[in-house]
């Protein structure tokens, strides 16, 4: 049956620097899965995809309704932090997924991307071009990006990646707790966005504040 669908893409840094915290992040994603997957209304209106990136990027959980899968793949660490690989795979994946949903007759809303990194890109010369292709105003599927930086992430880079909102973890917040708060914010966003408004639409809802994070000013154009 044709439905209104809001796709969420979670793009997570799984470089070596995440080694000590990746289990906590995987736990947070399992919580997200349980909360959304056991909520028929929200699971019906949203879709979820997990992309992990390090030296390259891979789709760990292809786009799905979270009620349709009984588990999601874990993030596993490996070397390097290629933002460029992440943005390239993300654009290709969105293009393919949305095309598939539309051909099935669904009404698809602009995808939402939750991007998380704990370090600086190891491809500083090339990632901006991949990013520009992802947010190209001429590309009608360009997603709304909410960027989160923790640990050694560069505030300016995180601000630049986020198109609608960006958050940087505060110094006093340990990475484990920061990832927990990231997962909570993501879950809250998916659950609240999965409710049709009184006007009959889906609206992307993002927490204005995330505990332990500073909200960065995102450039308006």
């Amino acid at each position: 049956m044709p439905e209104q669908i809001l796709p969420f893409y979670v793009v997570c840094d799984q470089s070596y620097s995440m080694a000590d915290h990746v289990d906590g992040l995987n736990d947070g994603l399992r919580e997200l899965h349980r909360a959304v997957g056991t909520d028929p209304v929200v699971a019906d209106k949203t879709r979820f995809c997990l992309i992990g990136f390090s030296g390259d990027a891979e789709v760990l959980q292809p786009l799905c309704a979270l009620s349709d899968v009984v588990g999601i793949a874990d993030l596993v660490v490996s070397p390097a932090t290629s933002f460029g690989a992440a943005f390239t795979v993300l654009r290709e994946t969105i293009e393919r997924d949305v095309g598939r949903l539309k051909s099935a007759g669904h009404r698809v809303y602009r995808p939402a991307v939750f991007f998380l990194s704990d370090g600086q890109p190891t491809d500083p010369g090339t990632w901006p071009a991949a990013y520009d292709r992802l947010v190209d105003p001429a590309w009608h599927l360009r997603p709304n990006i909410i960027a989160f930086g923790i640990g050694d992430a560069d505030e300016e880079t995180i601000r630049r990646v986020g198109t609608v909102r960006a958050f940087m973890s505060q110094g006093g917040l340990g990475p484990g707790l920061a990832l927990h708060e990231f997962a909570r914010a993501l879950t809250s966003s998916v659950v609240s966005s999965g409710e049709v408004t009184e006007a009959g639409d889906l609206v992307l809802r993002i927490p204005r504040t995330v505990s332990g994070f500073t909200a960065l000013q995102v450039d308006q154009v």
Partner: protein
Amino acid sequence: MAGDVQLADLGVARQIADGGQGVVFRVAGPDGLLLKLYHDEVRVNADELGRLIALPEGFAPPDRRLVAASTAWPCGRVFHRGRCVGLLMREAPPRFVTSIAGAPRLLELQFLLYPRRPMWRELVMPSADERRRLAVRYARLFQVLHGNGVLVGDVSMRNLLWSLVRGPGVFALDCDGFRLLGRRPAVRQADTAGWVDPAARIGLPTLDSDRYKLALVVLRLLLADHAVTPTDDLGGRLDPELLELADRAARPGERPAAADWLPALAGVQV
């Protein structure tokens, strides 16, 4: 009866839900008592809340028992610095809670309105006959509320629970949105999308709009379809008696009373 209490006097054990209007905590001490603490921006009419809390005392004993067994009716107001900031209510009995994917989950009506999914494959779903008997329970609850001049207002797939443990049973949450006919609610609630009476003004429920929403509950429950409405072509999906009621539900001002559904549900073929 919990009565009025001060927030500072309550021992809060654990947060269990964070909804649109407030956060719900389990209270330390008496078993099964919950605190709903409203978000700062929610306006609470303390007088109306007090009136609502006292209301069941005036019901006939069978109605009072049914409401006590089937609703999280508020049982106390919670004050902080002279302002009503929350309420106390009873927790849904354990029979309305299940375990899905290793975590406790309220048995919300929504599970009965969507096709079964792998994530809740372990959930024991009602048979067609049990769906009918659940529909009877919802109609009975509405009948008692309406009979005592109470409107439900916001009806949704989340604030109605069901159970098959010890026979079909139902339970209503978010009762602070209930109101006496002709009076304002203690707390204003938005209508849930997909559960709005097209003939009613938003936020201004009437007996007729409540009856329309009961029709949605009955039809969606019987047909296991979250989107069906009385205006859809239901020929072939319901028996003639129910079809006639659905047809009336589609006409503002002529919606069937809760009691009208009971005989039709007694021998229904779906």
